[in-house]
Protein backbone atom coordinates (compact mmCIF):
# COMPACT_ATOMS: atom_id res chain seq x y z
CA UNK A 1 0.00 0.00 0.00
CA UNK A 2 1.43 3.37 -0.88
CA UNK A 3 0.13 6.72 0.28
CA UNK A 4 1.98 8.62 -2.36
CA UNK A 5 4.77 10.02 -0.27
CA UNK A 6 7.30 9.65 -3.05
CA UNK A 7 10.92 9.26 -2.09
CA UNK A 8 10.17 9.76 1.56
CA UNK A 9 7.79 6.84 1.55
CA UNK A 10 10.47 4.84 -0.16
CA UNK A 11 12.98 5.66 2.52
CA UNK A 12 10.57 4.91 5.32
CA UNK A 13 9.56 1.67 3.70
CA UNK A 14 13.02 0.37 4.41
CA UNK A 15 12.65 1.12 8.09
CA UNK A 16 8.97 0.46 8.68
CA UNK A 17 6.84 -2.49 7.93
CA UNK A 18 5.18 -1.89 4.57
CA UNK A 19 1.92 -3.13 6.11
CA UNK A 20 2.02 -0.35 8.67
CA UNK A 21 3.18 2.67 6.72
CA UNK A 22 4.02 5.84 8.53
CA UNK A 23 0.88 7.94 8.94
CA UNK A 24 0.74 11.05 6.81
CA UNK A 25 -0.93 14.41 7.13
CA UNK A 26 -2.37 16.59 4.38
CA UNK A 27 -2.34 20.34 4.69
CA UNK A 28 -4.70 22.44 2.60
CA UNK A 29 -3.67 26.01 1.83
CA UNK A 30 -5.55 28.86 0.22
CA UNK A 31 -3.97 28.76 -3.21
CA UNK A 32 -1.21 27.26 -5.28
CA UNK A 33 1.12 30.09 -4.30
CA UNK A 34 0.99 29.02 -0.66
CA UNK A 35 1.32 25.35 -1.59
CA UNK A 36 4.54 26.12 -3.43
CA UNK A 37 5.72 28.33 -0.58
CA UNK A 38 5.11 25.45 1.82
CA UNK A 39 6.93 23.10 -0.52
CA UNK A 40 9.92 25.45 -0.62
CA UNK A 41 10.01 25.66 3.18
CA UNK A 42 9.80 21.88 3.65
CA UNK A 43 12.46 21.31 1.04
CA UNK A 44 14.74 23.84 2.68
CA UNK A 45 14.29 22.12 6.01
CA UNK A 46 14.79 18.63 4.67
CA UNK A 47 11.28 17.39 5.40
CA UNK A 48 10.05 14.75 2.97
CA UNK A 49 6.75 15.65 1.34
CA UNK A 50 4.62 15.35 -1.76
CA UNK A 51 2.57 17.96 -3.57
CA UNK A 52 -0.71 16.20 -4.39
CA UNK A 53 -4.06 17.20 -5.86
CA UNK A 54 -6.49 18.12 -3.08
CA UNK A 55 -8.22 14.77 -2.41
CA UNK A 56 -11.82 14.89 -3.53
CA UNK A 57 -12.82 13.46 -0.16
CA UNK A 58 -11.55 16.65 1.46
CA UNK A 59 -12.75 19.23 -1.00
CA UNK A 60 -14.06 19.56 -4.52
CA UNK A 61 -11.63 22.46 -5.02
CA UNK A 62 -9.29 21.96 -7.94
CA UNK A 63 -6.11 22.89 -6.09
CA UNK A 64 -3.04 21.14 -4.74
CA UNK A 65 -2.14 20.14 -1.21
CA UNK A 66 1.00 19.08 0.64
CA UNK A 67 1.32 15.64 2.23
CA UNK A 68 3.99 14.86 4.81
CA UNK A 69 4.66 12.36 7.60
CA UNK A 70 2.61 13.16 10.67
CA UNK A 71 5.79 12.64 12.68
CA UNK A 72 6.94 15.96 11.26
CA UNK A 73 3.69 17.81 11.76
CA UNK A 74 4.83 19.90 14.68
CA UNK A 75 7.84 21.17 12.75
CA UNK A 76 5.79 21.68 9.59
CA UNK A 77 3.12 23.69 11.36
CA UNK A 78 5.79 25.77 13.02
CA UNK A 79 7.46 26.52 9.70
CA UNK A 80 4.19 27.45 8.01
CA UNK A 81 3.13 29.66 10.90
CA UNK A 82 6.51 31.41 10.96
CA UNK A 83 6.11 32.19 7.25
CA UNK A 84 2.61 33.57 7.87
CA UNK A 85 0.89 30.86 5.84
CA UNK A 86 -2.73 30.44 6.90
CA UNK A 87 -4.05 26.91 6.82
CA UNK A 88 -7.32 26.12 5.10
CA UNK A 89 -7.35 22.64 6.59
CA UNK A 90 -5.26 19.90 8.16
CA UNK A 91 -6.06 16.20 7.83
CA UNK A 92 -4.67 12.86 8.72
CA UNK A 93 -4.86 10.17 6.09
CA UNK A 94 -6.64 7.25 7.74
CA UNK A 95 -7.13 5.13 4.66
CA UNK A 96 -6.31 5.25 0.98
CA UNK A 97 -9.11 7.70 0.29
CA UNK A 98 -10.19 8.71 3.70
CA UNK A 99 -9.12 11.63 5.82
CA UNK A 100 -9.83 12.89 9.27
CA UNK A 101 -9.65 16.57 10.13
CA UNK A 102 -7.24 17.32 12.93
CA UNK A 103 -6.88 20.47 14.90
CA UNK A 104 -3.59 22.26 15.09
CA UNK A 105 -3.95 24.01 18.39
CA UNK A 106 -3.42 27.73 18.17
CA UNK A 107 -3.66 27.68 14.37
CA UNK A 108 -7.45 27.20 14.63
CA UNK A 109 -7.68 24.94 11.65
CA UNK A 110 -11.04 24.45 10.00
CA UNK A 111 -11.90 21.90 7.41
CA UNK A 112 -12.50 23.30 3.94
CA UNK A 113 -16.27 23.53 3.62
Amino acid sequence: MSYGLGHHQQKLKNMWSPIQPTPTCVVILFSIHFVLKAEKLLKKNGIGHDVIPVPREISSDCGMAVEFPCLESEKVLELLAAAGLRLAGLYMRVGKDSFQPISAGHLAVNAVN
Partner: protein
Amino acid sequence: MSTKPAPIYADNAATSFPKPREVIDAVSAVLGGMSLSPGRSAHRYSLECSRVIFDTREALADFFNCPDSSRIAFTCNVTEALNVGIFGLLGEKLHPGDHVITTALEHNSVMRPLRYLEKTADISISILPVSGDGEVMVSELPRLIRDNTRLIVVNHVSNVTGAVADIEAIGRAKGDAVFLVDAAQSAGVFPIDVARMNIDMLAFTGHKSLLGPTGSGGFYLRPGLGLRPLKMGGTGSNSEAEIQPDFMPDCYEAGTPNTLGIAGLGAGVGFVTRTGLAAIRAHEQRLCRLFLDGLEQMKGITVYGPAGGRERAAVISLKVKGKSESAVAQSLDRDFHIMVRAGLHCAPGAHRTMGTFAEGTVRFSFGYFNTEADVAACLTALAIISKN
Protein backbone atom coordinates in the same frame (compact mmCIF):
# COMPACT_ATOMS: atom_id res chain seq x y z
CA MET B 1 26.45 56.69 -47.05
CA SER B 2 28.54 53.98 -48.54
CA THR B 3 28.71 51.45 -45.71
CA LYS B 4 25.62 50.45 -43.85
CA PRO B 5 26.18 50.89 -40.11
CA ALA B 6 24.83 48.33 -37.66
CA PRO B 7 21.58 49.53 -36.13
CA ILE B 8 21.90 51.22 -32.75
CA TYR B 9 19.00 50.94 -30.36
CA ALA B 10 18.77 53.99 -28.09
CA ASP B 11 15.11 53.73 -27.11
CA ASN B 12 15.44 51.61 -23.98
CA ALA B 13 13.09 53.85 -22.02
CA ALA B 14 10.28 52.68 -24.31
CA THR B 15 11.27 49.04 -23.96
CA SER B 16 14.67 47.43 -23.52
CA PHE B 17 16.44 45.76 -26.42
CA PRO B 18 18.10 43.36 -26.77
CA LYS B 19 16.93 40.96 -24.09
CA PRO B 20 19.47 38.70 -22.35
CA ARG B 21 19.80 35.29 -23.97
CA GLU B 22 18.41 33.62 -20.85
CA VAL B 23 15.18 35.60 -21.14
CA ILE B 24 14.65 34.35 -24.67
CA ASP B 25 15.53 30.82 -23.57
CA ALA B 26 13.18 30.95 -20.60
CA VAL B 27 10.27 32.07 -22.76
CA SER B 28 10.97 29.47 -25.37
CA ALA B 29 11.47 26.68 -22.81
CA VAL B 30 8.10 27.41 -21.27
CA LEU B 31 6.31 27.88 -24.57
CA GLY B 32 7.72 24.68 -25.98
CA GLY B 33 7.87 22.67 -22.81
CA MET B 34 4.58 22.78 -20.96
CA SER B 35 0.96 23.79 -21.11
CA LEU B 36 0.51 27.28 -19.83
CA SER B 37 -2.37 27.27 -17.39
CA PRO B 38 -1.02 27.52 -13.85
CA GLY B 39 -2.93 26.57 -10.71
CA ARG B 40 -6.01 25.39 -12.57
CA SER B 41 -5.48 21.67 -12.94
CA ALA B 42 -3.55 19.16 -10.88
CA HIS B 43 -1.41 17.64 -13.62
CA ARG B 44 2.32 18.06 -13.89
CA TYR B 45 2.30 20.74 -16.58
CA SER B 46 -0.03 22.92 -14.59
CA LEU B 47 2.14 22.44 -11.53
CA GLU B 48 5.37 23.21 -13.42
CA CYS B 49 3.75 26.30 -14.80
CA SER B 50 2.70 27.36 -11.30
CA ARG B 51 6.31 26.90 -10.23
CA VAL B 52 7.55 29.21 -12.97
CA ILE B 53 5.21 31.90 -11.72
CA PHE B 54 6.04 31.20 -8.09
CA ASP B 55 9.76 31.48 -8.79
CA THR B 56 9.37 34.83 -10.53
CA ARG B 57 7.23 36.09 -7.66
CA GLU B 58 9.84 35.02 -5.13
CA ALA B 59 12.63 36.59 -7.18
CA LEU B 60 10.77 39.91 -7.38
CA ALA B 61 9.99 39.85 -3.67
CA ASP B 62 13.69 39.41 -2.91
CA PHE B 63 14.58 42.05 -5.44
CA PHE B 64 12.36 44.70 -3.81
CA ASN B 65 13.05 43.45 -0.26
CA CYS B 66 9.52 42.32 0.42
CA PRO B 67 9.55 39.48 2.96
CA ASP B 68 6.29 37.90 1.78
CA SER B 69 6.12 37.15 -1.94
CA SER B 70 2.34 36.73 -1.83
CA ARG B 71 2.25 40.55 -1.66
CA ILE B 72 3.45 40.68 -5.30
CA ALA B 73 0.72 40.45 -7.95
CA PHE B 74 1.26 40.22 -11.69
CA THR B 75 -0.34 42.49 -14.25
CA CYS B 76 0.34 42.91 -17.94
CA ASN B 77 2.32 46.14 -17.46
CA VAL B 78 2.85 49.04 -15.08
CA THR B 79 -0.10 50.88 -16.58
CA GLU B 80 -2.42 48.14 -15.37
CA ALA B 81 -0.70 48.06 -11.98
CA LEU B 82 -1.11 51.83 -11.58
CA ASN B 83 -4.75 51.59 -12.60
CA VAL B 84 -5.32 48.84 -10.02
CA GLY B 85 -3.71 51.08 -7.42
CA ILE B 86 -5.52 54.30 -8.24
CA PHE B 87 -8.99 52.99 -9.12
CA GLY B 88 -8.74 50.17 -6.57
CA LEU B 89 -8.28 52.65 -3.72
CA LEU B 90 -11.54 54.38 -4.56
CA GLY B 91 -14.15 53.25 -2.06
CA GLU B 92 -11.43 51.71 0.11
CA LYS B 93 -9.01 54.38 1.33
CA LEU B 94 -10.00 57.07 -1.13
CA HIS B 95 -13.44 58.67 -1.09
CA PRO B 96 -15.14 61.60 -2.81
CA GLY B 97 -13.84 64.83 -1.35
CA ASP B 98 -10.39 63.36 -0.64
CA HIS B 99 -7.07 64.74 -1.79
CA VAL B 100 -4.24 63.25 -3.83
CA ILE B 101 -0.70 64.55 -4.37
CA THR B 102 1.36 63.71 -7.41
CA THR B 103 4.24 65.28 -9.35
CA ALA B 104 4.61 67.25 -12.53
CA LEU B 105 6.64 64.39 -14.02
CA GLU B 106 3.98 61.71 -14.11
CA HIS B 107 3.29 59.51 -17.08
CA ASN B 108 -0.21 59.46 -18.51
CA SER B 109 -0.72 56.07 -16.89
CA VAL B 110 -0.96 58.02 -13.61
CA MET B 111 -2.32 61.37 -14.78
CA ARG B 112 -5.22 60.04 -16.82
CA PRO B 113 -6.69 57.89 -14.03
CA LEU B 114 -6.19 60.76 -11.55
CA ARG B 115 -7.77 63.35 -13.84
CA TYR B 116 -10.67 60.98 -14.38
CA LEU B 117 -11.21 60.69 -10.62
CA GLU B 118 -10.92 64.46 -10.29
CA LYS B 119 -13.75 64.82 -12.77
CA THR B 120 -15.99 61.95 -11.74
CA ALA B 121 -15.30 61.27 -8.06
CA ASP B 122 -14.68 64.73 -6.59
CA ILE B 123 -11.02 64.00 -5.85
CA SER B 124 -8.76 67.05 -5.69
CA ILE B 125 -5.18 66.91 -6.92
CA SER B 126 -2.08 68.86 -5.91
CA ILE B 127 1.07 68.74 -7.98
CA LEU B 128 4.52 68.62 -6.40
CA PRO B 129 6.51 71.14 -8.43
CA VAL B 130 9.73 70.45 -10.23
CA SER B 131 12.89 72.55 -9.96
CA GLY B 132 14.60 74.29 -12.88
CA ASP B 133 16.69 71.26 -13.75
CA GLY B 134 13.78 68.88 -13.61
CA GLU B 135 13.93 67.44 -10.10
CA VAL B 136 10.84 66.88 -7.99
CA MET B 137 10.91 69.30 -5.05
CA VAL B 138 10.31 66.95 -2.16
CA SER B 139 10.78 69.83 0.28
CA GLU B 140 7.39 71.15 -0.84
CA LEU B 141 5.57 67.98 0.21
CA PRO B 142 4.76 68.86 3.85
CA ARG B 143 3.08 72.06 2.69
CA LEU B 144 0.85 70.17 0.26
CA ILE B 145 -0.25 67.42 2.66
CA ARG B 146 -3.76 67.96 4.07
CA ASP B 147 -5.84 66.08 6.62
CA ASN B 148 -7.64 64.33 3.79
CA THR B 149 -4.58 63.47 1.67
CA ARG B 150 -5.08 59.77 1.05
CA LEU B 151 -2.71 59.06 -1.79
CA ILE B 152 0.70 60.24 -2.99
CA VAL B 153 1.79 58.99 -6.42
CA VAL B 154 5.35 59.55 -7.55
CA ASN B 155 7.25 58.60 -10.68
CA HIS B 156 10.62 57.36 -9.41
CA VAL B 157 12.59 58.15 -12.58
CA SER B 158 11.36 60.53 -15.25
CA ASN B 159 10.98 58.91 -18.64
CA VAL B 160 11.54 62.36 -20.19
CA THR B 161 14.56 63.76 -18.34
CA GLY B 162 16.03 60.84 -16.40
CA ALA B 163 15.65 62.80 -13.14
CA VAL B 164 15.48 60.62 -10.03
CA ALA B 165 12.93 61.47 -7.34
CA ASP B 166 14.04 61.07 -3.74
CA ILE B 167 11.39 58.49 -2.89
CA GLU B 168 13.01 57.66 0.42
CA ALA B 169 12.47 61.24 1.59
CA ILE B 170 8.88 61.13 0.32
CA GLY B 171 8.34 57.85 2.17
CA ARG B 172 9.49 59.55 5.35
CA ALA B 173 7.23 62.57 4.87
CA LYS B 174 4.10 60.87 3.51
CA GLY B 175 2.11 60.76 6.76
CA ASP B 176 -0.96 58.50 6.63
CA ALA B 177 -1.35 58.68 2.88
CA VAL B 178 -0.87 55.62 0.68
CA PHE B 179 2.46 56.04 -1.12
CA LEU B 180 2.33 54.65 -4.65
CA VAL B 181 5.57 54.59 -6.64
CA ASP B 182 5.75 54.23 -10.43
CA ALA B 183 8.99 52.28 -10.88
CA ALA B 184 8.58 51.85 -14.66
CA GLN B 185 11.95 53.43 -15.45
CA SER B 186 13.81 52.70 -12.23
CA ALA B 187 13.27 49.02 -11.46
CA GLY B 188 16.36 47.18 -12.65
CA VAL B 189 18.63 50.23 -12.47
CA PHE B 190 18.11 51.98 -9.13
CA PRO B 191 17.81 50.15 -5.82
CA ILE B 192 14.26 49.92 -4.50
CA ASP B 193 13.60 48.68 -0.98
CA VAL B 194 9.90 48.83 -0.16
CA ALA B 195 10.54 48.47 3.56
CA ARG B 196 13.27 51.06 3.94
CA MET B 197 11.55 53.51 1.59
CA ASN B 198 8.19 53.11 3.31
CA ILE B 199 6.45 52.34 0.02
CA ASP B 200 2.85 51.15 0.30
CA MET B 201 2.48 50.14 -3.32
CA LEU B 202 5.18 49.72 -5.94
CA ALA B 203 4.13 49.41 -9.57
CA PHE B 204 6.65 48.00 -12.05
CA THR B 205 6.76 46.92 -15.65
CA GLY B 206 8.61 43.84 -16.87
CA HIS B 207 9.81 44.94 -20.27
CA LYS B 208 12.09 47.89 -19.53
CA SER B 209 15.14 47.60 -17.25
CA LEU B 210 13.94 44.33 -15.70
CA LEU B 211 14.70 43.02 -19.20
CA GLY B 212 11.62 40.81 -19.52
CA PRO B 213 9.13 40.54 -22.38
CA THR B 214 6.34 43.00 -23.00
CA GLY B 215 3.05 42.05 -21.40
CA SER B 216 4.66 41.48 -18.01
CA GLY B 217 4.60 43.63 -14.90
CA GLY B 218 2.99 43.85 -11.53
CA PHE B 219 2.92 45.48 -8.14
CA TYR B 220 3.88 45.08 -4.52
CA LEU B 221 1.19 45.92 -1.99
CA ARG B 222 1.92 46.48 1.69
CA PRO B 223 0.31 43.93 4.04
CA GLY B 224 -2.96 45.24 5.43
CA LEU B 225 -3.66 47.48 2.47
CA GLY B 226 -6.64 46.33 0.40
CA LEU B 227 -7.74 47.44 -3.04
CA ARG B 228 -10.89 46.75 -4.97
CA PRO B 229 -9.82 44.36 -7.75
CA LEU B 230 -10.38 45.76 -11.25
CA LYS B 231 -11.18 42.33 -12.60
CA MET B 232 -12.75 39.29 -11.05
CA GLY B 233 -12.92 35.73 -12.25
CA GLY B 234 -11.20 32.39 -12.12
CA THR B 235 -8.13 32.10 -9.94
CA GLY B 236 -7.83 28.34 -9.52
CA SER B 237 -8.49 28.82 -5.80
CA ASN B 238 -11.76 28.73 -3.83
CA SER B 239 -13.48 27.44 -6.95
CA GLU B 240 -16.59 26.47 -5.01
CA ALA B 241 -17.20 30.11 -4.07
CA GLU B 242 -18.87 32.64 -6.35
CA ILE B 243 -17.08 35.51 -4.72
CA GLN B 244 -13.60 36.73 -5.55
CA PRO B 245 -10.91 35.51 -3.10
CA ASP B 246 -9.90 38.24 -0.67
CA PHE B 247 -6.26 37.21 -0.29
CA MET B 248 -3.20 38.08 -2.33
CA PRO B 249 -2.03 37.32 -4.89
CA ASP B 250 -5.19 35.58 -6.15
CA CYS B 251 -7.59 38.48 -5.54
CA TYR B 252 -5.82 40.61 -8.20
CA GLU B 253 -4.98 37.85 -10.66
CA ALA B 254 -8.24 36.66 -12.16
CA GLY B 255 -7.89 34.99 -15.53
CA THR B 256 -5.14 32.87 -17.05
CA PRO B 257 -1.95 34.91 -16.65
CA ASN B 258 0.78 35.71 -19.14
CA THR B 259 2.88 32.74 -18.10
CA LEU B 260 5.34 33.32 -20.94
CA GLY B 261 5.91 36.91 -19.98
CA ILE B 262 6.27 36.02 -16.32
CA ALA B 263 8.79 33.29 -17.15
CA GLY B 264 10.85 35.79 -19.14
CA LEU B 265 10.53 38.39 -16.41
CA GLY B 266 11.88 35.88 -13.90
CA ALA B 267 14.91 35.31 -16.11
CA GLY B 268 15.33 39.07 -16.55
CA VAL B 269 15.32 39.65 -12.80
CA GLY B 270 17.80 36.78 -12.51
CA PHE B 271 20.09 38.47 -15.03
CA VAL B 272 19.86 41.83 -13.25
CA THR B 273 20.51 40.24 -9.86
CA ARG B 274 23.49 38.27 -11.10
CA THR B 275 24.96 41.22 -12.98
CA GLY B 276 24.33 43.53 -10.04
CA LEU B 277 22.31 46.73 -9.94
CA ALA B 278 25.42 48.72 -9.12
CA ALA B 279 27.29 47.39 -12.17
CA ILE B 280 24.30 48.03 -14.45
CA ARG B 281 23.84 51.53 -13.11
CA ALA B 282 27.56 52.34 -13.34
CA HIS B 283 27.64 51.25 -16.99
CA GLU B 284 24.54 53.22 -17.95
CA GLN B 285 25.72 56.29 -16.09
CA ARG B 286 29.10 56.14 -17.79
CA LEU B 287 27.34 56.10 -21.17
CA CYS B 288 25.09 58.93 -20.06
CA ARG B 289 28.01 61.08 -18.90
CA LEU B 290 29.91 60.39 -22.11
CA PHE B 291 26.89 61.46 -24.13
CA LEU B 292 26.24 64.59 -22.04
CA ASP B 293 29.91 65.61 -22.22
CA GLY B 294 29.87 65.18 -25.99
CA LEU B 295 26.67 67.20 -26.32
CA GLU B 296 28.18 70.02 -24.28
CA GLN B 297 30.82 70.53 -26.98
CA MET B 298 28.17 70.84 -29.67
CA LYS B 299 26.50 74.00 -30.88
CA GLY B 300 22.76 74.14 -31.45
CA ILE B 301 21.79 71.40 -29.00
CA THR B 302 19.70 72.05 -25.90
CA VAL B 303 19.68 69.32 -23.25
CA TYR B 304 16.91 69.08 -20.64
CA GLY B 305 16.96 67.56 -17.19
CA PRO B 306 19.35 67.35 -14.24
CA ALA B 307 22.57 69.25 -14.78
CA GLY B 308 26.12 68.57 -13.70
CA GLY B 309 27.00 65.59 -11.59
CA ARG B 310 23.45 64.92 -10.34
CA GLU B 311 22.33 61.35 -10.13
CA ARG B 312 20.22 60.51 -13.15
CA ALA B 313 19.14 57.72 -15.45
CA ALA B 314 20.53 57.35 -18.97
CA VAL B 315 17.46 59.02 -20.47
CA ILE B 316 18.40 62.22 -22.25
CA SER B 317 15.96 64.64 -23.83
CA LEU B 318 17.25 67.25 -26.24
CA LYS B 319 16.39 69.61 -29.03
CA VAL B 320 18.35 70.46 -32.14
CA LYS B 321 18.16 74.11 -33.07
CA GLY B 322 16.10 74.77 -36.18
CA LYS B 323 15.01 71.15 -36.61
CA SER B 324 11.75 69.49 -35.72
CA GLU B 325 11.93 66.56 -33.32
CA SER B 326 10.40 64.20 -35.82
CA ALA B 327 12.83 65.27 -38.55
CA VAL B 328 15.80 64.63 -36.25
CA ALA B 329 14.51 61.21 -35.22
CA GLN B 330 13.74 60.32 -38.81
CA SER B 331 17.19 61.29 -40.00
CA LEU B 332 18.82 59.38 -37.12
CA ASP B 333 16.94 56.27 -38.15
CA ARG B 334 17.13 56.62 -41.93
CA ASP B 335 20.65 57.97 -42.35
CA PHE B 336 22.43 56.61 -39.26
CA HIS B 337 20.36 53.57 -38.23
CA ILE B 338 19.95 55.02 -34.76
CA MET B 339 16.60 54.42 -33.09
CA VAL B 340 15.32 57.04 -30.64
CA ARG B 341 11.95 58.47 -29.74
CA ALA B 342 10.64 61.93 -30.60
CA GLY B 343 7.68 63.79 -29.18
CA LEU B 344 5.94 64.02 -25.82
CA HIS B 345 6.76 60.59 -24.34
CA CYS B 346 3.30 60.26 -22.76
CA ALA B 347 4.11 62.80 -20.07
CA PRO B 348 2.72 66.19 -21.11
CA GLY B 349 3.22 67.63 -17.61
CA ALA B 350 6.95 67.01 -17.77
CA HIS B 351 7.15 68.89 -21.05
CA ARG B 352 5.13 71.79 -19.65
CA THR B 353 7.62 72.19 -16.81
CA MET B 354 10.55 72.17 -19.26
CA GLY B 355 8.87 74.46 -21.74
CA THR B 356 8.92 71.82 -24.45
CA PHE B 357 5.18 71.21 -24.48
CA ALA B 358 3.41 70.47 -27.74
CA GLU B 359 6.44 69.61 -29.85
CA GLY B 360 8.32 67.56 -27.23
CA THR B 361 11.93 66.45 -27.41
CA VAL B 362 14.22 63.92 -29.05
CA ARG B 363 14.90 61.27 -26.43
CA PHE B 364 17.96 59.03 -26.30
CA SER B 365 17.82 56.25 -23.74
CA PHE B 366 20.73 53.88 -23.23
CA GLY B 367 20.57 50.45 -21.66
CA TYR B 368 22.96 47.89 -20.26
CA PHE B 369 23.71 46.48 -23.70
CA ASN B 370 24.67 49.77 -25.30
CA THR B 371 28.38 50.48 -25.72
CA GLU B 372 30.62 53.52 -25.72
CA ALA B 373 30.87 53.09 -29.49
CA ASP B 374 27.07 53.44 -29.68
CA VAL B 375 27.27 56.71 -27.80
CA ALA B 376 30.09 57.96 -30.04
CA ALA B 377 28.00 57.12 -33.13
CA CYS B 378 25.02 59.01 -31.68
CA LEU B 379 27.21 62.05 -31.05
CA THR B 380 28.67 61.95 -34.55
CA ALA B 381 25.22 61.67 -36.08
CA LEU B 382 23.90 64.59 -34.02
CA ALA B 383 26.90 66.70 -34.96
CA ILE B 384 26.17 66.11 -38.64
CA ILE B 385 22.43 66.65 -38.33
CA SER B 386 22.81 69.86 -36.34
CA LYS B 387 25.20 71.31 -38.96
CA ASN B 388 23.04 70.55 -41.98
